[in-house]
C-alpha cells in the first residue's frame, strides 16, 4: 500500500507493516526532548508520584534555554531544578545555556531520518526537516513518554506542500512560511505537512528547518522533508550517524494519498511581513512598508541561526541602525555565536549598532531580556506574534525574515530589504 513519509515512520514505530490515517496507534519514541520550562520542573513530581525514573536516560535530551540567563530568583530556581534533575536522573545529553533546544538537536547530531521525536515544545516540528516525525506534547504527555518510551497518536492525514522554483534574492524560507500561514491557514490541526519539490531541495538544511519549525504555525502536528544528500551531509558534519540508504527508505511513495496538495511557486514570492497579532496576517512587504518601529529583533529557533545572522549582516554591512531604534540580536546557540564571531558576521552587526543578547528564548517567549512596553512596535525574525507574547499586551509585533528585520532597523520603519542587497546572491 502506498504511504506518505509520516505513515512509513509511524508504521515502523508501531511495529506494523502499514498504518492508515485515522487509526489510533501506540508508537515507540526514539528521542524525547524538553527544556527548562516544560521539562524537569513539570516532570519531577509526577515521576516521583509514579515511583519511576526515565525509560532511557540516554534518549532524553534536556536543554535550558527558556529562562537563561536567570533574570530573577524564580527563574534561577527553575534552572537549578533542571540541573539537579539532569544529574540525579542520569541525563547525559544536558545542554545548559548552550542555545535553543530545536537548534541544539541537529547541531549535535541527535536527529536522523525515520525517527520519532517527542518534544515538550510546540516547535519540536523543527527536526522534521531531517525526515523525522517530530511533534510537540504537553507536560503530562511528556511525563508518560519519558517514563514509558511510548505514546498514542492518531495517524495523521498528510498535506503535501509542493514548492517549485528558486527564491529570488532577499526572499527566504521564512517568507515561504509566512505566505503559507496566510494561504493554507493555521487550522491544519492533527495533520502532517510534507514539503517537497525542487524548491525545497534547493534549500540549505538551516532553511529547511524554517519550513519544518513553522509547521507549528500552520497548526500541523509535524512538518517533514524527505532526506537527500544535503541532509546526510549535514548530519555527518554534525557528528551524527546515518545510513546511506536513508533517502531511499524515508520518502513518500509516488502514488501516496494526500488530504490536499498545495502548490507554491517560490520564484514568484516577495518578502513577506505578518502584521499583529497573527502569523497568518501576512502580506507582501510593500503593504506594511513605512510603518514606524521601536525595536528590531533577530532571535529564536526559527530566526537566529548562522544563516539568519549572515542575512542580517549582508544588509547591515557599513550601515547603521536608525536613531531611536534598537536592534537586538540573540544568536540561536553558542556554536552560532562562535561561528558568527569567526566569520566576521558578529562584528558587522555590532558595528551597525546591534546589541547582542544571550542565546535563548528570551524576548521570543516573553520571558527574558528585550521585551516591549505598551504601544511599542517591534519587527521580529521569530515565528509568533500573538498578543502579549513579547511583553505588554498592547505592544505590536510584525514578523519577517532577518533581511527585512535588518532593513527595517536601518530605516526605522518597515522596509523592503531588496534595495539593500547590493551584490550577488546572499544566503537563503
Amino acid at each position, binding site marked *: 500500500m502506498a504511504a506518505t513519509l509520516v505513515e512509513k515512520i509511524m508504521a515502523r514505530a508501531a511495529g506494523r507493516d502499514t498504518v492508515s490515517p485515522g487509526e489510533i496507534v501506540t508508537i515507540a519514541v526514539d528521542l524525547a526532548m524538553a527544556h527548562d520550562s516544560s521539562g524537569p520542573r513539570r516532570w519531577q*513530581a509526577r515521576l516521583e508520584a509514579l515511583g519511576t525514573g526515565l525509560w532511557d536516560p540516554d534518549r532524553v535530551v534536556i536543554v535550558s534555554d527558556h529562562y537563561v540567563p536567570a533574570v530573577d530568583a524564580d527563574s534561577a530556581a527553575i534552572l537549578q531544578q533542571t540541573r539537579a534533575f539532569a544529574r540525579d536522573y542520569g541525563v547525559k545529553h544536558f545542554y545548559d545555556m548552550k542555545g535553543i533546544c530545536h537548534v541544539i538537536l541537529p547541531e549535535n547530531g541527535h536527529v536522523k531520518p525515520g525517527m520519532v521525536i517527542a518534544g515538550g*515544545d*510546540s516547535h519540536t516540528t523543527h527536526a522534521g526537516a531531517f525526515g523525522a516525525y517530530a511533534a510537540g506534547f504537553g507536560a503530562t504527555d511528556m511525563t508518560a513518554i519519558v517514563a514509558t518510551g511510548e505514546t498514542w497518536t492518531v495517524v495523521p492525514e498528510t498535506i503535501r506542500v509542493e514548492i517549485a522554483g528558486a527564491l529570488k534574492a532577499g526572499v527566504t524560507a521564512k517568507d515561504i512560511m509566512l505566505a503559507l500561514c496566510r494561504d493554507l491557514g493555521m487550522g491544519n*490541526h492533527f495533520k502532517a505537512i510534507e514539503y517537497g519539490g525542487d524548491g525545497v531541495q534547493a534549500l540549505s538544511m538551516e532553511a529547511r528547518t524554517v519550513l519544518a519549525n513553522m509547521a507549528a504555525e500552520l*497548526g500541523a502536528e509535524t512538518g517533514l522533508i524527505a532526506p537527500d544528500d544535503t541532509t546526510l551531509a549535514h548530519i555527518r558534519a554534525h557528528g551524527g550517524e546515518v545510513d546511506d540508504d536513508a533517502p531511499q527508505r524515508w520518502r513518500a511513495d509516488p502514488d501516496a494519498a494526500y488530504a490536499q496538495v498545495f502548490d507554491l511557486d517560490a520564484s514568484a514570492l516577495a518578502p513577506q511581513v505578518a502584521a499583529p497579532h497573527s502569523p497568518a496576517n501576512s502580506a507582501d512587504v510593500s503593504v506594511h512598508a513605512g510603518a514606524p518601529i521601536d525595536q528590531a529583533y533577530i532571535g529564536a529557533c526559527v530566526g537566529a541561526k548562522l544563516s539568519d545572522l549572515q542575512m542580517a549582516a549582508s544588509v547591515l554591512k557599513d550601515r547603521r541602525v536608525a536613531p531611536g531604534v534598537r536592534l537586538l540580536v540573540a544568536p540561536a546557540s553558542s556554536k552560532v555565536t562562535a561561528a558568527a564571531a569567526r566569520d566576521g558576521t558578529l562584528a558587522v552587526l555590532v558595528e551597525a549598532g546591534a546589541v547582542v543578547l544571550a542565546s535563548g528564548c528570551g524576548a521570543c517567549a516573553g520571558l527574558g531580556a528585550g521585551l516591549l512596553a505598551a504601544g511599542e512596535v517591534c519587527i521580529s525574525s521569530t515565528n509568533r506574534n*500573538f498578543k502579549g507574547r513579547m*511583553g505588554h*499586551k498592547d505592544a505590536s509585533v510584525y514578523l519577517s525574515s532577518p533581511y527585512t528585520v535588518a532593513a527595517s532597523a536601518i530605516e526605522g520603519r518597515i522596509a523592503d530589504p531588496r534595495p539593500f542587497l547590493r551584490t550577488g546572491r546572499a544566503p537563503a
Partner: protein
Amino acid sequence: MSVREGRAWVFGDAIDTDLLAPGHAMKKSPAELAKHTLEAVDPDFAASVRSGDMLVAGRDLGIGSSREQAAISLKTLGVSAVIAKSFARIFYRNCINIGLPAIIFDPAGRIHPGDRLRLDLAAGRLSSLATRESWPVPALPPHLMTMIEQGGLMASLQARFAPPGADGQSRRAPGSLT
C-alpha cells in the same frame, strides 16, 4: 462524573496559549498563573468564572505553545469543559490528559454568553438550559473516554506504575502535579 453544568463564557476564534497562560506569569504557581488567564482579552474572566462554567470558543482554540498550563489554569479556575469549533492538537491532548473534557462543537448562533449549559459526556449531548435546545456532540474515542473517567493520564499511569495495594489504597500520593 459525566454530567457537567455551568455558565458559558464565549470567546471568538484563535484563542491562543499566550492568552490562556501569559508568558510573564509562567514562573508563578498554578494558582497565581490562573489569575492571569485570558486577561488580555477579558480582564474579569479569572475573577468571575465559577466552578462548573464552560469555556466556549470558535476556531483554533489553544493554538500556539505546548504549555500545559493553558489547560491547567482553566481547570484550576473551575472550568468544567471546553467547547470549540476546532482545537489545536497539543492543547486538545493536554485537556484530555488532565481530565478536562474538550468537545468539538460549533457554538455560532447557538450558545450565548452567560447561557446555562449542561454537558452529558457519556450520552454525548450538550444542552442549553437558556434556549432549551440540545445537540449531539461527537463522542470521544473509547481510550480517551476511559482516561477521563480514570481522572486523566496521570491516574492511568498510576494504575500502570503504582497499582493500588491490597488495601485498595494507592501506594503513592499524586503530589503537586502542576
